[in-house]
């Protein structure tokens, strides 16, 4: 680990320091970059890193080799990922036994190991570098640009890549109003879900009466299947800190908070390290870079309540109160944390800021659609071939994200819907796949941008169950303060349970719609107001599935027990007797060479025969 040699005293010091870091004398000839994002770490990449480190140490003098841990590359599906410089050779699904060979052949010998390269499923072409992989080709990485390149535990890495040059520029040549103007020109909108214009929020907070003013980074990401913010905090924590510095300067704040959920231990660890390094170098604290601007950041860990991602609940939690939302009739930019003007932005929003300052608002506004500028990070999960973290320019169609980046559907199944926006979002069906990813367009479809979860579902997914899943999630996560959310979601869940348990009643859809309307109009916070979106959007696009459950007592996706039956395909059955032996209620009869039969009266629909049949002769009908 490189010790931090300097305390930066003026804005120009940053550039000089970055320059000195790039001196060829200091930079190693070969670098092995091992991803230690949570996904890869779960597959044992920490150990890989240690092995590479050891190998580099043992090798010694002639060539300087550095093993480096880096943040999430995004292609979590193919982890652990190891990239070798020079050449940016991209190895995927690396395991411990591969380390010695990679070191010998690639790092020292410069030879490429074909078997560790990514192979395109369609063309069978091997990709040597990231940019040859379709998963990366369509992406446009601004926020994630540093992920996979820099060591998140070293401030020097960030500075060498041009980090903290934006705050230097701001402090040396821009007034707070000019900073806000630049963000306004960029057209940056809140990435946490609401899409509120960031510049307008900053300006309101700047103009609000009352001191001190606070800036908050919302890192309480809680949507099921979403991990965008975690990866940014883990992989490039300094970009968030720099963004907050710039925001605080523009707003006139000296106090910053990062609210990160405690379930993100690596993110917290990296942020802590980053903050203390920034402090040591004089980038946080009193009179930053000898200017009159002072700012420091404190990390607060969230206790795991989903509702604490809502700004007022988050602030209540920061105050030490129960994390419950309060009315926002008076905006938090006027009266937020401790009743003082408070500006809260999401992790991704903050991480965009340094880039905008460095490259100009016009550049940023050149990316995206008319009203949604820049890029958006999504966590692409579900039944696609390539899951992972992707960053795409606004305006890309859902189809391109799923087909080109995601590589299409898994196991040759048919696409059914994509769920965006987390529990507050909705399901978008195949006929709307050409929709462009944009705040307004997704909202129009009854879904929303949200913080960036994107769950792809295939024909085997029952949409009523999807709605039920999200409703149950929200019922559990409702704080219980206001009546409609606490009681209404429970009543919706009660009806959805009834439908998926083959007890749906005529009129249930209308009852759900009525409750949804009530929630939307009367709930206290956004969690409650949008809680019905999963139900409403599935009713809107998949009403026939609801009808099939209620009227025909049939689950078209064959997921709801009791709404389909098992039968044995006479022709496929080899009369092996496995199902017969495994049936716990002896509902299957048959002899050798005689296709077996399920007695529907005895069958309890446990699915054991379906699981055990080696010839897939048991069918769901």
């Amino acid at each position, binding site marked *: 680990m490189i010790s931090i040699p300097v305390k930066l005293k003026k804005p120009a010091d940053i550039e000089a320091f970055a320059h000195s870091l790039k001196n060829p004398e200091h930079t190693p000839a070969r670098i092995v970059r091992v991803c230690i994002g949570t996904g890869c770490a779960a597959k044992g990449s920490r150990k890989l890193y240690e092995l590479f480190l050891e190998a580099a140490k043992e090798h010694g003098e002639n060539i300087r080799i550095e093993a480096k841990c880096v943040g999430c590359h995004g292609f979590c599906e193919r982890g652990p990922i190891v990239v070798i410089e020079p050449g940016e050779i991209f190895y995927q699904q690396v395991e411990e036994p591969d380390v010695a060979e990679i070191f010998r052949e690639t790092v020292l010998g410069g030879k490429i190991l074909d078997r560790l390269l990514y192979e395109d499923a369609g063309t069978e072409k091997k990709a040597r570098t990231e940019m040859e992989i379709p998963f990366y080709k369509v992406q446009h990485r601004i926020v994630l640009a540093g992920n996979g390149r820099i060591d998140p535990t070293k401030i020097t890495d960030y500075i060498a890549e041009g980090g903290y040059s934006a705050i230097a520029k701001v402090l040396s040549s821009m007034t707070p109003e000019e900073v806000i103007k630049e963000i306004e020109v960029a057209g940056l909108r809140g990435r946490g879900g609401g899409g509120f214009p960031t510049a307008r929020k900053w300006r309101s907070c700047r103009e*609000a*009466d*009352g001191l001190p003013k606070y800036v908050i980074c919302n890192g309480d990401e809680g949507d099921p299947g979403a991990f965008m913010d975690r990866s940014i905090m883990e992989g490039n924590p300094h970009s968030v800190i720099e963004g907050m510095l710039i925001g605080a300067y523009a707003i006139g704040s000296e106090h910053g908070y990062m609210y990160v959920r405690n379930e993100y231990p690596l993110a917290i660890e990296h942020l802590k390290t980053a903050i203390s390094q920034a402090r040591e170098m004089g980038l946080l604290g009193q009179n930053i870079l000898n200017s009159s601007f002072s700012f420091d950041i404190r990390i607060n860990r969230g206790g795991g*309540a989903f509702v604490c991602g809502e700004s007022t609940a988050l602030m209540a939690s920061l*105050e030490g109160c*129960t994390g419950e939302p*309060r*009315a926002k*009739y*008076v905006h938090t930019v*006027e*009266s937020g944390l*401790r*009743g*003082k*003007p408070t500006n809260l932005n999401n992790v991704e929003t903050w991480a965009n800021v340094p880039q905008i300052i460095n490259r100009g608002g016009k550049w940023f506004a050149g990316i995206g659609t008319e009203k949604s500028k820049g890029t958006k990070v999504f966590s692409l999960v579900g039944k696609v071939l390539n899951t992972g973290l992707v960053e795409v320019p606004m305006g890309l169609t859902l189809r391109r994200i799923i087909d080109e980046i995601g590589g299409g559907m898994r196991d040759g199944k048919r696409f059914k819907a994509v769920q965006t926006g987390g529990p507050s979002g909705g399901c978008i069906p195949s006929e709307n796949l050409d929709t462009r990813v944009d705040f307004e367009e997704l909202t129009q479809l009854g879904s929303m941008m949200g913080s960036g979860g994107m769950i792809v579902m295939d024909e085997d997914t029952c949409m009523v169950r999807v709605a039920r899943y999200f409703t149950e999630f929200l*019922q*559990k*996560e*409702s*704080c*219980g*303060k*206001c*009546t*409609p959310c*606490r*009681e*209404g979601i*429970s*009543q919706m869940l*009660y009806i959805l349970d009834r439908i998926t348990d083959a007890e749906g009643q005529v009129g249930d859809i209308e*009852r759900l719609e*009525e*409750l949804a309307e*009530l929630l939307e*109009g*009367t*709930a*206290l916070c956004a969690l409650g107001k949008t809680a019905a979106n999963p139900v409403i959007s599935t009713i809107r696009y998949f009403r026939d599935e609801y009808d099939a459950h209620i009227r025909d007592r049939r689950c078209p996706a064959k997921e709801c027990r009791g709404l389909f039956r098992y039968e044995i395909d006479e022709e496929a059955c080899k009369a092996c007797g496995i199902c017969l032996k495994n049936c716990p209620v002896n509902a299957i009869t048959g002899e050798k060479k005689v296709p077996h039969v399920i007695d529907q009266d005895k069958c309890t629909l446990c699915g054991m025969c379906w699981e055990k049949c080696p010839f897939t002769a048991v069918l769901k009908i």
Partner: protein
Amino acid sequence: MPLHCRLKNIKKGKPVPTVTIDGRKVRVKKDATVLDAANKADIWIPTLCYHPALSPDAACRLCMVELDRGEWRQLITACNYPVRKDIVVYVSSERAKMARRGVMELLLARAPESEELKALAARIGVKETRYPTVTESQRNCILCGLCVKVCEEIIGQSAIGFTGRGVERTVAAPFRQPSEDCIGCGACVAVCPVGTIKMRIHKSEQEVEISPFKSRVKLLVCEECGEPVVSMQVNERVLGMVKGNIEDFLKHWRLCPKCRRSRTAARFQEVTGCEKD
């Protein structure tokens, strides 16, 4: 933080905004609530979790009214929406009425046995609820939070609070045990809008119990007739608040109001020599 404190930070604007409620115009002080304006205009808005002595929380969502935003209308809670400029609201619009009725139906499913709630429901046109009622253990408390607030903000004891989250939310004393902080004042009983919190006098033990929290406090008993007067702790606290020379008063403080009156009358007679009528 209570709303009135939060509002301190807000910029001064036009001093006396006009609120038009269902066509009726009233002028209120800046940062008064829509409910204040409605009261002034003599228009009734049903409330449950609102109490003039306590900071508004807008938790029950029964006081929904419609706010005219020009191009669209938004449902807002009257009890905590601050009036900061001229606004137009509708209390009796169809959407506002439906919203209030919808909330009431959900509340009725929670407290189906409360006569108070049934009466309020009938007043806003809800005869019964279509929803299944909640389990017995949670029944009859609508979680408005008035009891918790009054205990904290007015009495200063915080003997009860919310426990659990979401559907598990209940009002209870810590660990659901009788609270040692409860002074048996009965403020929670007085504010409970659905009559679920009750005060029980256990005469033989000379104790008052606040139900359902099971907290018990010793009662001051009239030294003459033996009737319970007030909880010992409330009595002590009140005495502590009295300033000046109260020696004379202290002679009478262990009497119930009735006995005190008769003793005063007797003394009056003694001093003046007048006979009782």
